[in-house]
């Protein structure tokens, strides 16, 4: 029979979980905002194990404490492993085996930096080429087609045909015209 937790039980369990999460957070030198996540993790683990609780063998607080400690141990192992895989290092760390005194910041290219991970454009030459391509495409396309191009970045031609205001046949005719003009301007289709 599943054990129902009363509000009084929760009053006992919550401080235990908070204390264990606080201890874990300090031990692993994790940011304080992660403490709440750890606490939730421990409480969830306890709920999953609550069916094994036997009141004849001890109090709920003792059972919860053991559960929290085991969960904290597993969390600590996982977090340490993740940290090791991440190779945390300072950008100001010196690079060994170099004649000059170089730091990590000197040898990591911008294309492998944080901005690149977030999908931002880091290659200045590529950005310039893209800008020139856009200017060229803008000059070749008819002014009235700019709105259609903008709408096509948000939805497919099929959806745009349904939304209007352009009739479907007119829309597809204009898309075909745009493609041919772009081809003539030296901008080939991406696929």
């Amino acid at each position, binding site marked *: 029979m599943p054990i129902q937790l009363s509000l009084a039980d929760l009053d006992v369990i919550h401080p235990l979980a908070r204390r264990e999460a606080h201890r874990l957070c300090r031990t692993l030198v994790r940011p304080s905002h992660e403490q709440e996540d750890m606490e939730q993790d421990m409480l969830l683990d306890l709920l999953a194990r609550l069916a094994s609780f036997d009141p004849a063998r001890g109090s709920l607080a003792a059972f919860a404490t053991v559960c929290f400690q085991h969960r904290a141990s597993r969390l600590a192992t996982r977090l340490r492993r993740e940290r090791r895989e991440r190779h945390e290092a300072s950008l100001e760390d010196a690079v060994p085996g170099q004649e000059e005194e170089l730091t990590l910041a000197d040898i990591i290219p911008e294309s492998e930096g944080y901005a690149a991970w977030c999908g931002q454009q880091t290659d200045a030459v590529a950005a310039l080429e893209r*800008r*020139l391509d*856009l*200017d*060229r495409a*803008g*000059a*070749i396309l008819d002014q009235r087609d*700019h709105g259609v191009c*903008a709408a096509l970045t948000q939805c497919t031609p099929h959806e745009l045909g349904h939304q209007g205001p352009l009739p479907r046949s007119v829309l597809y005719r204009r898309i075909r015209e745009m*493609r*041919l*003009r772009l*081809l*003539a*301007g*030296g*901008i*080939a289709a991406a696929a």
Partner: protein
Amino acid sequence: MDTNITDIRAVVPPLTEASLCTWLGAAASGDSITYHRGALAREVCPHLQCLPAHERTALQRLAARAWKLAELDLADLLQRRHGYEDYSYILVARRRPRRYASSILPLLLVEAA
């Protein structure tokens, strides 16, 4: 060992609107292509029926596309006479402007406002 360099501007016949535009996109200033040989006005006329319907339609489209490219100042159209009702219709790539006026920036500014 000799290495064959593929000519990206080579066009595989029959010429279509898309292949003509692709050729022009890769062409240098002054490059030319003969997009038709014969008597265009006669051959595209539906009443004379010089060509089957699908070929005539394709030729009409090709000729119309060449005309549009000329209207866009991307190419010049020439004809070379070989004999009676025998002409080469030639499209010559024009020089592209060294710098295009930015047409995207004003749009972005309008959208940002």
